[in-house]
């Protein structure tokens, strides 16, 4: 079993707002992230897959294919987007880093066949990241 991690970067804007909260509650809980015009981040995504090394190719997974899957399923949907308005998962769910990592996991899982998804790590800033292992 070998683990392989591939990184990608995307930039997007979002805001934190729960319509069930009062304006005062939204401001108190989400602070500056509640600014109605949104704000942006440069996200760094790390996708880790695991699998046995194929004896013929020496690969766990074809990196080029993994890159293409990440590009198609994640970057095309999220890069340079306003997540709350343009990404279906976040029309009714707050695009926190936690929820984005979970959404990315669910986008990738059905597209990976040769190797198994092990972890999605998403950095919102270099000092803040979320790990999701597909656990309930």
């Amino acid at each position, binding site marked *: *079993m*070998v*683990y*392989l*991690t*591939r*990184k*990608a970067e995307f930039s997007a804007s979002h805001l934190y707002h729960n319509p069930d909260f009062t304006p005062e509650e939204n401001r108190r809980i989400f602070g500056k992230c509640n600014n109605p015009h949104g704000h942006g981040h440069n996200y760094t995504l790390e996708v880790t897959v*695991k699998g046995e*090394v194929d004896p*013929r*190719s*020496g*690969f*766990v997974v*074809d*990196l*080029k294919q993994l890159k293409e899957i990440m590009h198609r399923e994640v970057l095309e949907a999220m890069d340079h987007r306003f997540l709350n308005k343009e990404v279906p998962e976040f029309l009714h769910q707050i695009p926190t880093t936690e929820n984005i990592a979970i959404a990315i996991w669910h986008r990738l899982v059905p597209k990976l066949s040769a190797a198994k998804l*092990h972890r999605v790590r998403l950095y919102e800033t270099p000092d803040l990241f979320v*790990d999701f*292992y597909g656990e309930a």
Partner: protein
Amino acid sequence: MKAHLSRRYLFSASHRLHSDAMSHTENQSTYGKCNNPHGHGHNYTIEVTVSGQVDSHTGMVCNLTDLDAFIEREVLARYGHENLNTLPEFSKQVPTTENLCIQIYEILQRGFTHAHLERVRIEETMMNSFEYVGGKELRH
């Protein structure tokens, strides 16, 4: 108390990804640019993680100079500025970074006795890396 210690090392080497078991077309479609017959190079970063009880006298899991000397002698001297395809371990195995990671893990497993080997991780580029923990599942 048990602690984990990780140390990073750098080396540069070249390789060509090509499998004799595959046709020319299959090699091209599987390995793309990495199948270039003249090879190409990387600056590899190895991250070695060992663990053990913290010695009450030294405050160390193991002396870093022992790990450094071992890696220098057994890994960096072996792979640094080499063409990986010319080495015996890759005469019948494609020198992908998966296979290189397993080789380096096994070198440490066989010869490094100052602490318990936990993991070998290799960064091939800034954007990809490989980890091997002896075939076991990686802990979170």
